[in-house]
């Protein structure tokens, strides 16, 4: 029986932990989608940009070094000293907040009241711009990110259960739980959180009770920037900071279809289901159909959901009156 097979449980645990990593990215999408009705295609690039910035600060890179060299003829690529990890993280967060402000002023404000699809296209543009900007600022080489999180397999778990679990994934799970609880508390129990939920529900009514949409959007995009930073740190620490990081956004899509675009718990549960699902499918079905199912399993599952439950597990049901 496979339930008694320790290998099965190892797969489940590692699937859950991988799922947490997907959820972290999906969370950023949900936050923005709820508050402004925009599907932010650039969320993956946000994570990449945040990670690049963090590495840059940490290692003391000079931003726009190549451009500066070309303009001034100097050859300075490094300040010679980096910032301590914690300070670098705070600085990166500052950059993400600044970025959020620029996005609201430059992209959202001129497009207010436009169709969702137009805003979506704008975020695709934003993704390319930001990817280019990241390249220009910090260079395109693959970087290692070390924020002092423990690496390698956890010996205690191996000794106790015989399961092979990466320490970094445990850290990611813990951070994700803290992040989600903090976000929930913020949105349920504070004035600002209430304003965020109000904006998510009805823009016009929100204006009439004295909520400034622009301020709220700035806050929401800043929080999405924070989530992107956390996701960037976790993914960067696990597999290096490289431009393929922006593609994890694609893995977040099926997570959202499963969980529903408007639900924070949905993003978490969706990520876990896909994380575990794709590992188990690979293990038990993979060998019969040639393997490599992890590449497409999530999308297939999402397609099934679109057929039978288009609003996802936790999303709001779309009812249209005629």
């Amino acid at each position: 029986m496979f339930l008694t097979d320790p290998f099965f449980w190892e797969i489940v645990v590692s699937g859950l932990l991988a799922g947490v990593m997907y959820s972290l990215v999906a969370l950023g999408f949900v936050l923005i989608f709820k508050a402004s009705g925009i599907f932010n295609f650039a969320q993956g690039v946000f994570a990449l940009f945040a990670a690049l910035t963090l590495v840059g600060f940490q290692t003391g890179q000079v931003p726009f070094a190549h451009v500066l060299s070309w303009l001034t003829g100097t050859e300075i690529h490094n300040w010679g000293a980096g910032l301590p990890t914690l300070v670098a993280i705070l600085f990166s967060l500052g950059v993400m907040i600044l970025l959020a402000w620029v996005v609201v002023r430059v992209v959202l404000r001129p497009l207010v009241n436009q169709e969702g699809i137009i805003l979506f296209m704008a975020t695709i543009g934003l993704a390319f711009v930001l990817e280019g900007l990241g390249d220009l600022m910090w260079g395109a080489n693959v970087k290692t990110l070390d924020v002092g999180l423990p690496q390698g397999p956890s010996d205690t778990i191996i000794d106790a259960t015989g399961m092979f679990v990466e320490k970094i994934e445990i850290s990611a799970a813990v951070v994700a739980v803290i992040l989600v609880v903090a976000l929930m508390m913020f949105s349920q129990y504070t004035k600002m959180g209430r304003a965020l939920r109000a904006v998510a529900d009805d823009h016009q009514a929100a204006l009439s009770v004295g909520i400034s949409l622009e301020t709220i959007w700035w806050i929401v995009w800043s929080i999405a920037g924070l989530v992107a930073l956390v996701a960037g740190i976790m993914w960067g620490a696990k597999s290096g900071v490289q431009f393929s990081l922006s593609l994890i956004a694609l893995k977040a899509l099926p997570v959202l279809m499963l969980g529903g675009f408007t639900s924070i718990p949905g993003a978490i549960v969706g990520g876990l289901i896909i994380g575990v699902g794709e590992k188990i499918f690979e293990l038990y079905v993979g060998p019969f159909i040639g393997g490599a199912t992890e590449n497409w399993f999530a999308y297939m599952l999402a397609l099934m959901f679109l057929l039978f439950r288009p609003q996802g597990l936790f999303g709001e049901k779309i009812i249209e009156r005629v």
Partner: protein
Amino acid sequence: MSLPPTAEAAENDDAYAAAEEEHGLNPRQVGPVIMDIRNITLRFGGVVAIKDISFDVREGEIRAIIGPNGAGKSSMLNVINGFYHPQEGEIWFRGKKRGAMKPHEIAKQGIARTFQNIALFKGMTTLDNIMTGRLTKMHKNMFWQALWSGPAEAEEIEHRERVEKIIDFLEIQHIRKTPVGRLPYGLQKRVELGRALAAEPQLLLLDEPMAGMNVEEKEDMCRFILDVNEEFGTTIALIEHDMGVVMDIADRVVVLDYGRKIGDGTPDEVRKNQDVIDAYLGVAHD
């Protein structure tokens, strides 16, 4: 009256008469002009929605705006609350000329409103909806809120008390924790009124507060509007189609038709105004 009134109308009249009697006992204080609207013109491209309209609202009164469909009533309300910016004209609020302001800034000045097609936060509970009305009154900064401790908590509790009073006043205690999307229409309208009241507005704008209600709900709403006006001294400007209601509760009425003002005065004056009668009943063009 030559025709005998219908049962429904009679019941209506009785309720209004009772309300009038009750409220007639202590004549309310109507103060100086709180909002002065001067020569407002609003155009959407080539369409003139409002043409050169002026009227004022006095402190403590109930001011009704009436008119046939498409007369520009809701547009007028949207101008007052800042959703629309008129091309011409001035708005004076509490003795000061108002510059171009955003709706959320106007809300902070003390102007609250309800909407014709209820604009509540449907996913949130009644309590939360009404709490959003207090946003303009809450001042503790984000840092304390993030910690949700100390000053922010005390503030939350204080506001919660105010909100509970409004809930009591509107008799909606039983639906405090219900998401408003699930409530029947009449109750949603009442919650929306509660949210507007929570801001302790100096001027309360009501866009068709009784539209689509049954007689009983209308009577309740009438009572609440009169009570708000009397107990809190709130100045109210409302749009309404039910003539019986308007004539009974309003102190003064302004009548719009095709974006122009065709009448302004007490209900009795307006009722006798020939232009108003023509606009409502139609006039033979021969």
